[in-house]
């Protein structure tokens, strides 16, 4: 058995750590590229959202490298993600791939359901080992998130262009290489050190942008055309409304780990604009925008894949939030045709707008 799973940002680092710790052989898909996209969109339904197409491409590429079992998350709607696995599997079967499919449905009531499913994949390892493995994966996610936050702060302030990203990949490599939970703290402190060596101009004025939207698009740089890096280079400090570890905690651990930012807070901030959950992260997108406005951010960018239903609801409502709370919002819809050049132009225009507003504020103050 060689297990693979779809890419979603740095999720693979956590999953690989967890599975390998349990003695499962892992073949993560090669990094998502144009080729992945072409493969996926060729066989996926035309109006499926981009993540489905990329998942499919990931699985096809992983199969070439010997993967034979797919580990995939499920869901109970109303967003389409909950039925991805079944549709992807049907397509792969018709194409003649000999995959085994294991779907981990999110626990409806209690974390024990989640544990039981993980244990099933690993052929009945002892509980303590399963729990340790999950903890291992989670710690890695936390560390990666922390490093990313450092990068988000440094990018707009770096003195040597590109030095943040260089440091970030070096630091990330250390985390990836940690084989055992007890190695993580050391990797983290070394990684942090590397990040701290990036020279920055602390007094440089930067605009602050919050990023909201659909989780996959948010976490997967290939899909969002690397918005965060572009924004950083244009002098914007970015804050992303959902991080990997928060998502794991909210969705798989049912918020068991206290003291971290939770999507509950964002949902609570959504009324009166959006008074009900709409699946996915639609309500969180509205709520986070409200929170960013209150925290004095200069602007918000919403990211969504074409035809994503919850985010279309949010998109329809954001103009009202933006006008009410006086915070500019830019919506970027991505699909397989989105080009990097066009996106950069739009980001630049948006930052110009924010800078003008920022200067006005300064003058008035």
């Amino acid at each position, binding site marked *: 058995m060689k297990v693979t799973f779809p890419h979603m940002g740095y999720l693979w680092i956590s999953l690989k750590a967890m599975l390998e710790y349990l003695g499962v052989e892992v073949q993560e898909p090669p990094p998502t590229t144009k080729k992945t996209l072409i493969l996926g969109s060729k066989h996926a339904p035309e*109006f499926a959202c981009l993540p489905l197409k990329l998942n499919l491409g990931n699985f096809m590429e992983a199969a070439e490298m010997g993967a034979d079992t797919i580990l995939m998350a499920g869901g109970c709607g*109303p967003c389409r993600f909950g039925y991805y696995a079944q549709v992807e599997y049907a397509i792969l079967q018709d194409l003649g791939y000999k995959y085994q499919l294991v779907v981990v449905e999110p626990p409806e009531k209690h974390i024990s359901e989640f544990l039981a499913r993980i244990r099933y994949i690993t052929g009945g390892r002892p509980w303590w080992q399963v729990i340790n493995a999950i903890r291992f994966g989670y710690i890695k996610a936390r560390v990666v998130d922390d490093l990313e936050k450092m990068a988000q702060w440094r990018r707009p302030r770096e003195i040597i262009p590109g030095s943040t990203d260089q440091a970030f990949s070096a630091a990330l490599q250390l985390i990836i290489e940690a084989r055992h939970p007890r190695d993580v703290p050391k990797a983290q402190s070394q990684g942090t050190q590397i990040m701290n060596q990036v020279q920055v101009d602390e007094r440089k004025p930067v605009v602050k942008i919050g990023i909201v939207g659909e989780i996959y698009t948010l976490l997967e740089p290939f899909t969002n055309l690397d918005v965060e890096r572009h924004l950083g280079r244009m002098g914007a400090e970015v804050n992303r409304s959902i991080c990997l570890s928060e998502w794991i905690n909210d969705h798989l651990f049912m918020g068991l780990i206290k003291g971290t930012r939770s999507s509950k807070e964002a949902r609570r901030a959504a009324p009166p604009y*959006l008074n009900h959950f709409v*699946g996915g992260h639609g309500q969180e997108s509205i709520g986070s925008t409200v929170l960013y406005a209150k925290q004095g951010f200069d602007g918000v960018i919403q990211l969504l894949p074409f035809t994503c239903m919850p985010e279309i*609801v949010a998109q329809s409502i954001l103009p009202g939030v933006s006008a009410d709370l006086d915070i500019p919002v830019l919506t970027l819809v991505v699909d397989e045709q989105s080009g990097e050049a066009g996106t950069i132009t739009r980001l630049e225009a948006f930052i110009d707008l924010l800078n003008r507003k920022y200067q006005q504020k300064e003058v008035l103050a």
Partner: protein
Amino acid sequence: MKPTVGIPRALLYYEFFPLWNVFLKSLGVSTCVSPCTNKRILANGLKNSVDEACLPIKLAMGHVIELCGKVDYIFLPRIVSVAPREYICPKFLGFPDMVRNAVPNVPKLIDANIDLYHPRSKAQKNLHEIGKLFCSNPMRINRAHKTACHSLISFKKLLQKNILPEEAMEIMACKESAFKNKHCNYDSNGPTIALIGHSYNIYDQHISMDIIGRLKKLGVNVVTAETLPEETIRQGATILPKKLFWTLGQQSIGSAIHFLSDPAISGIILVSSFGCGPDALTGELIERYIHGTRPIPFLKLTLDEHTGEAGVITRLEAFLDMVYWKAG
């Protein structure tokens, strides 16, 4: 003076109007339905929605706008779920909020939740919330609810006799006489085609370019999911590897599977709207299932605001040629 409640002729109107209408009327409210879709309604809907929204949502927006200024309230319940562990579509969950944001000076919205997701939730309780707006006597609300349910049952019975929703409503309004005249339209000797798609697409004459009427004029019998009992549909959908969590998706898949197994059906047309999320997946599953089981003439039509009538007619004709050719 009696308050007037506007009901948009959109979305689940084609499935639940008799229930809503009778319920409201029994509480002493007058109701007003937006007119059949026309160019103006569609244009208003398009103008006031984000580009990315699907056609039915844009259209519903147009119908809401049409009612503005004419009514005291707009009936726009937040339809979360109409069956246990199932949803309609995320956009239904957010629609009242989308309207509030897009339509300035919109009349007061009746946007109570209709949410039967939890197996123990009761439709009656949901309607009670709405009833309380107009009536303080719980007994009277209960009675209104009962009458409304009866009316929905009669409506569904008419639909199962293969009468179109709008006609069924007419029949219910003016009783038997109309029924006799209408009924003789059906059962031609031509082939029978299954038309699968959301009710707000296939029964809206403007949006669907009157596919049903056209087919009938060409001597074809048309059957839809609404002509089947609910159990048949649910039974059909059980072939899926995992229960589908969209009620409308179940309707499409379940009915497609049933029709496919019925030798009297000579072809299947699948209608969906541009940008429909659930259909992107259910349509795919249906198509794969059809290819894998019974090679039957199959046509997939995607409706959008730019669909040209000519193109649709050509494709319908080609499809019918196939049907006749296969029938020998």
